């Protein structure tokens, strides 16, 4: 049953991917990427990976589309014809694809309980999460505590990516450019105005719910940051970019990115100062279970702040460049 659904959606996924490669119109490619992301998210959902599906929805379907379109504003719509060594490309791709297909013969069946991945660590995580953390979402437990180092690395990668984009796009635009920060957005369209304005508070509320309910249901800092960022992007689309910058200035965004990364690292350092290892939350409070929960809530807040600030900084960096006609 699940297999049939998954196969069906994967087939559509392959068709969409081929169409993205085929088309030379970049706008069409962006539209199809949005569909690709929705299909991918449905697949994750069917395979019971709700946290990943939520991330794919919040980042892939929403914010990636917005950032792709913002990038498309700065360039031309049609891909330039490129002179490539087609024969060599085909040979390399054929060899690699057959290697990958050959490798899949050794792969365990989908959902096989005897697969090596289900033998070693996963049972331990499932067994110990209720004991150490006392909440049901094992994914949050793994991300926040068991593998807290990896998540710290991810936050620093987001931080570095944000700085990299600002370095490249943040330079002063050339003289006589057409950028107008008071561009009206969709201000003169009544229906998007009314519906969109109504939706912004609910989007923020849902983001906060995902942030603070991450221990009990799918979600966590990353998804929440993306949801709140998309609420502010919605405001920017409706009221124009200048209004969004008035509401949440650039300094606040950079503060969020830096503050989020620092908060995460700071929790780790506090753990050391209180006599534990780096990111060993059990020493934070007298009760080890409550301490684990506090630590996870703190670092999730750091993740949410960093992701929200980074996504919005990148969006504004793109929007501030002159449009290419």
């Amino acid at each position: 049953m699940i297999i049939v659904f998954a196969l069906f959606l994967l087939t559509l996924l392959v068709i969409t991917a081929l169409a993205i490669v085929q088309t030379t119109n970049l706008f069409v490619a962006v539209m199809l990427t949005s569909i690709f992301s929705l299909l991918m998210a449905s697949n994750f959902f069917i395979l019971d990976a709700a946290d990943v599906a939520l991330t794919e929805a919040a980042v892939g379907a929403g914010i990636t589309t917005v950032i792709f379109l913002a990038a498309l504003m700065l360039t031309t719509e049609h891909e330039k014809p490129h002179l490539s060594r087609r024969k060599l490309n085909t040979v390399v791709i054929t060899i690699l694809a057959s290697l990958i297909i050959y490798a899949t013969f050794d792969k365990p069946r989908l959902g096989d309980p005897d697969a090596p991945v289900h033998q070693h660590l996963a049972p331990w995580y499932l067994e110990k999460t209720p004991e150490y953390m006392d909440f049901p979402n094992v994914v949050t437990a793994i991300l926040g505590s068991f593998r807290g180092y990896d998540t710290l690395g991810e936050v620093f990668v987001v931080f570095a990516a944000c700085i990299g984009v600002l370095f490249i796009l943040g330079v002063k635009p050339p003289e006589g450019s057409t950028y107008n920060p008071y561009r009206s957005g969709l201000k003169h369209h009544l229906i998007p105005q009314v519906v969109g304005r109504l939706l912004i508070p609910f989007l923020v509320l849902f983001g906060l719910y995902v942030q603070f309910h991450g221990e009990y249901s799918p979600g966590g800092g990353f998804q929440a940051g993306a949801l709140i960022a998309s609420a502010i992007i919605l405001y920017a689309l409706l009221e124009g970019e200048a209004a969004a910058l008035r509401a949440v200035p650039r300094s606040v965004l950079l503060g969020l990115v830096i503050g989020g990364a620092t908060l995460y690292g700071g929790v780790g350092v506090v753990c050391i100062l209180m006599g534990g290892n780096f990111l060993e939350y059990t020493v934070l409070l007298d009760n080890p279970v409550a301490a684990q929960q506090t630590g996870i809530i703190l670092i999730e807040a750091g993740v949410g702040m960093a992701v929200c600030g980074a996504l919005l900084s990148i969006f504004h960096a793109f929007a501030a460049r002159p449009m290419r006609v």
Partner: protein
Amino acid sequence: MYLVVSIAILVTMILALVRALRGPTVYDRVLAVNMFGTKTVLLLAVIAFLFGRPDFLDLALAYALINLVGVLAVLEFIQNKPRKAETSNID
């Protein structure tokens, strides 16, 4: 019952995908993407009940909210970027 509904939604998804792939105008594709998003929301909701996990409805909610932001971004893009020809000549 849920099964029949989900198959019907999958068929609709194919139709939307065909329109998104074939175009020909920009607006065909925008509408197709929007409709595809709506069908994804419905599919997730129905499958959540089919598999007996109604607590995953959160996800469908997130999709419904995010989809609107994406479509509004596309509309703003089309409004602001001057287009050479209204019908783009793809495929």
